[in-house]
């Protein structure tokens, strides 16, 4: 028995839970905090697992598989569901044959995202059941329920996790082994179910409403909707990781912990509310449980004192509860030590983005722009629309090269919009290779079709770096490590109709500067592919650069690269040999006006 106990993350537990539940097809696009779910599944060679081009395609792959009776799943970060929302709604209408589970990983606190949207609203909108784990054991167990519910009620099931659950490790009893329910998937002709023409979609909607009534009955007896009685003066309804914070702050209260948060067990909630003096909800982000409980006519409070913004923790729940007299004042906590320098994330030593960013910084006089930002509104000399990836870190000083970042693929459309609105400055869009595959291609087609005079710089580091180096259609390697066809960005752009395409070595400053200058001067759409492997993937590091202190005049020009290997102590700049990427990079060596840097 001991052997089945393991300390694993929520994401590993979801992957193992799905595997043991007999999942046959899994698709995903990498996105923090969901990435490790598919990474862990891809290791099993008896299932099919893919990195899809984007979340929409992933959802469609999983839908198709589920139509054949295979058990299928798709995993994504919360904003991924925005991309996949079209097929997501359709899947609710058509229903499935084999179980279809959609894992959505929300990111309260925006640890690594562009917003903190609460995806629980999606389950309500799509009229599908939703499950929420509180820890890794729940994640493992709920995956089993998710597939069963999906098949029993002919519906996709949403499993909603959050960063804190996905990335925390806790002890799990892995008490199941893999069982495949349908080992000979087949697609059977059924136009009324699968073709969403108005004539079919309207009756399907009616079926969805009937399905919801059945699910409302089911949730009343769902085993992971659990009441634990304590003192009756305070009852707490909660779900997700908030359950643990609340348990710790209110050790004596009564709890209704919800493992299934849509539809809600109305009878159970009313019964629980009727047996406690005061009812509160402790939940992260929006008042989802609270509002829905209020609409049952039950008196409850929650967001009146629990914050709407950011993730919760024991301290926040404590402080909020003191504020409304739920618990007595406790000792004052110590503030953080003052005046400490911050340590924000940086582009790595040897990063292939540093060189092009330095060129854009100097051509666009970005440092000057930053210094004069208090002098009133001003248009940058070079407007640079950004995108989502490691390269978003270029927004920070000293490089400061981005003007916008909204969502995956947005930079190209935004650049075109600005150019067409008639800005005086040149407009450049920056996008990574994986992001370009995800949702940059359609933007490029639009730019060519509508003839915007913009320059699109594709930073091709041959991987999806930010999320931990996943493969993508441009790398020619599948999620399960097999060689496959590599989509060639240059031919793709040429096929779309871009005439000016340059491929430039990411570590050649002179070529980068000349290339960018040339493209900016053109009255057409131009594409620059800046190619260089992600430094984290280069194993061979030889000849770290050194600074000759005799030649160095402390002009600090090299420090403006923002390379973590270039440091300064006691007024002398030096290169930390254990950090420098050496021969693969040499950008500082190319830049040093005094030729003081060499191997």
């Amino acid at each position, binding site marked *: 028995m001991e052997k089945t106990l393991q300390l694993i993350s929520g994401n590993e537990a979801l992957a193992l839970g799905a595997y043991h539940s007999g999942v046959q097809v899994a698709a995903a696009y990498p996105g923090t905090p969901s990435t490790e779910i598919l990474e862990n599944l891809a290791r099993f060679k008896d299932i099919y697992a893919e990195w899809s081009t984007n979340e929409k395609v992933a959802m469609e792959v999983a839908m198709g598989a589920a139509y054949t009776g295979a058990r299928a799943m798709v995993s994504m970060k919360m904003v991924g569901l925005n991309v996949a929302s079209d097929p997501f709604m359709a899947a609710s209408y058509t229903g499935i044959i084999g179980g279809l589970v959609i894992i959505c990983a929300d990111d309260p606190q925006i640890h690594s995202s562009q917003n903190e949207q609460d995806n629980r609203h999606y389950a309500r909108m799509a009229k599908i059941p939703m499950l929420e784990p509180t820890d890794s054991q729940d994640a493992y167990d709920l995956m089993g329920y998710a597939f069963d519910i999906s098949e029993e009620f002919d519906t996709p099931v949403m499993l909603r996790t959050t960063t804190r659950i996905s990335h925390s*490790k806790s002890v799990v009893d892995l008490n199941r082994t893999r069982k495949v329910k349908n080992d000979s998937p087949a697609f059977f002709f059924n136009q009324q179910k699968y073709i969403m023409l108005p004539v079919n979609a309207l009756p399907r909607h009616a079926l969805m409403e009937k399905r919801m009534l059945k699910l409302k009955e089911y949730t009343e007896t769902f085993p992971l909707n659990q009441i634990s009685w304590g003192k009756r003066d305070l009852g707490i309804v909660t779900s997700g990781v908030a359950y643990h914070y609340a348990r710790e702050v209110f050790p004596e209260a009564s709890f209704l912990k919800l493992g299934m948060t849509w539809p809600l067990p109305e009878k159970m909630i009313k019964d629980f509310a009727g047996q406690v003096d005061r009812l509160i909800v402790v939940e992260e982000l929006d008042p989802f449980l609270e509002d829905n409980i209020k609409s049952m006519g039950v008196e409850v409070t929650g967001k009146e004192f629990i914050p709407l913004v950011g993730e919760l923790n024991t301290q926040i729940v404590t402080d909020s509860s003191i504020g409304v007299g739920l618990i007595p004042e406790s*000792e004052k*906590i*110590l503030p*953080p*030590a003052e005046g400490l320098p911050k*340590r924000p994330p940086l582009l790595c030593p040897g990063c292939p983005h540093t060189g092009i960013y330095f060129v854009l910084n100097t051509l666009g006089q970005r440092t000057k722009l930053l210094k004069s930002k208090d002098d009133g509104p001003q248009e940058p000399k070079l407007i640079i629309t950004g995108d989502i990836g490691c390269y978003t870190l270029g927004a920070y000083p000293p490089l400061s090269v981005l003007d916008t970042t909204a969502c995956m693929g947005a930079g190209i459309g935004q650049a075109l919009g600005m150019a067409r609105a008639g800005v005086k400055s040149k407009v450049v869009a920056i996008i990574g290779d994986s992001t370009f595959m995800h949702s940059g291609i359609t933007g490029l087609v639009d730019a060519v079709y509508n003839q915007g005079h913009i320059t699109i710089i594709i930073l091709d580091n041959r991987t999806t770096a930010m999320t931990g180096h996943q493969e993508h259609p441009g790398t020619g390697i599948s999620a399960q490590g097999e060689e496959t066809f590599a989509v060639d960005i240059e031919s793709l752009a040429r096929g779309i109709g871009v005439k000016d395409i340059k491929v430039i070595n990411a570590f050649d400053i002179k070529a980068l500067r000349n290339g960018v200058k040339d493209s900016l001067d053109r009255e057409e759409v131009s594409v620059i592919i800046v190619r260089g492997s992600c430094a984290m993937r280069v194993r061979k590091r030889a000849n770290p650069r050194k600074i000759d202190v005799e030649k160095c005049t402390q002009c*600090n020009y090299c*420090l403006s690269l923002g390379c973590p290997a270039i440091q300064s102590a006691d007024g002398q700049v030096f290169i930390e040999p254990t950090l420098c990427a050496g021969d693969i990079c040499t950008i500082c060596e190319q830049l040093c006006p005094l030729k003081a840097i060499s191997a």
Partner: protein
Amino acid sequence: MRTVMSPEGDIGMSNAKMEKINLLVTGVGGQGVVLASDIIGETALAAGYDVKKTDTLGMAQRGGSVLSHVRLAPRVWSPLIKDGTVDLLLALEKLEAARWSHFLRPGGIAIVNNYEQPPLSVSLGQEKYPGDGAIAAALKRRTDQVYFVDGTVRVKELGNVRTLNIFMLGCFSVFSPLDVETWRESIARRMPENIREINLTAFETGRKEIEGVRIGKS
């Protein structure tokens, strides 16, 4: 050189079996904080504890500050530790020790690697790296049990700077209620064959180092 900054205190944790321990492991992206906290968690599980551990990573893996919360108890609820309740702070870099000092409980223990990795803002001259006195003062707001160890120097002598995280585990192990053999087993399980020996050596070196610091003080 050993920097000893605190008087010999009552460790409290090494003798009887502790009911529960809240532990913070911190450092800079790339130093191996996450692996170290994983090994702590796995060792505690092997010793029969309930364990939760969580990292604040996100974008921080690119050279930013990294923090792992590890909690051991008969039953652990929240994965995140409440402010002011950390029993032991294990810091692989000095500035990061000061940054999280407010999490320490009164009388908690801080083990700090005497190593400075300046953030970019310091290199650019925009901010100042705090002196040893300021770092010790931040920690001493909570506790006198502050132990500085020369981990980076020791693992350089061993010939592999990447073993720093395991060296620091060695330092921690002396204060922990977990059996030394259980520690060795879980380290060995996590390390590929070619670096297993050197990591186990780093672990022993860490144990000796912290004992030396403790004895050296009296």
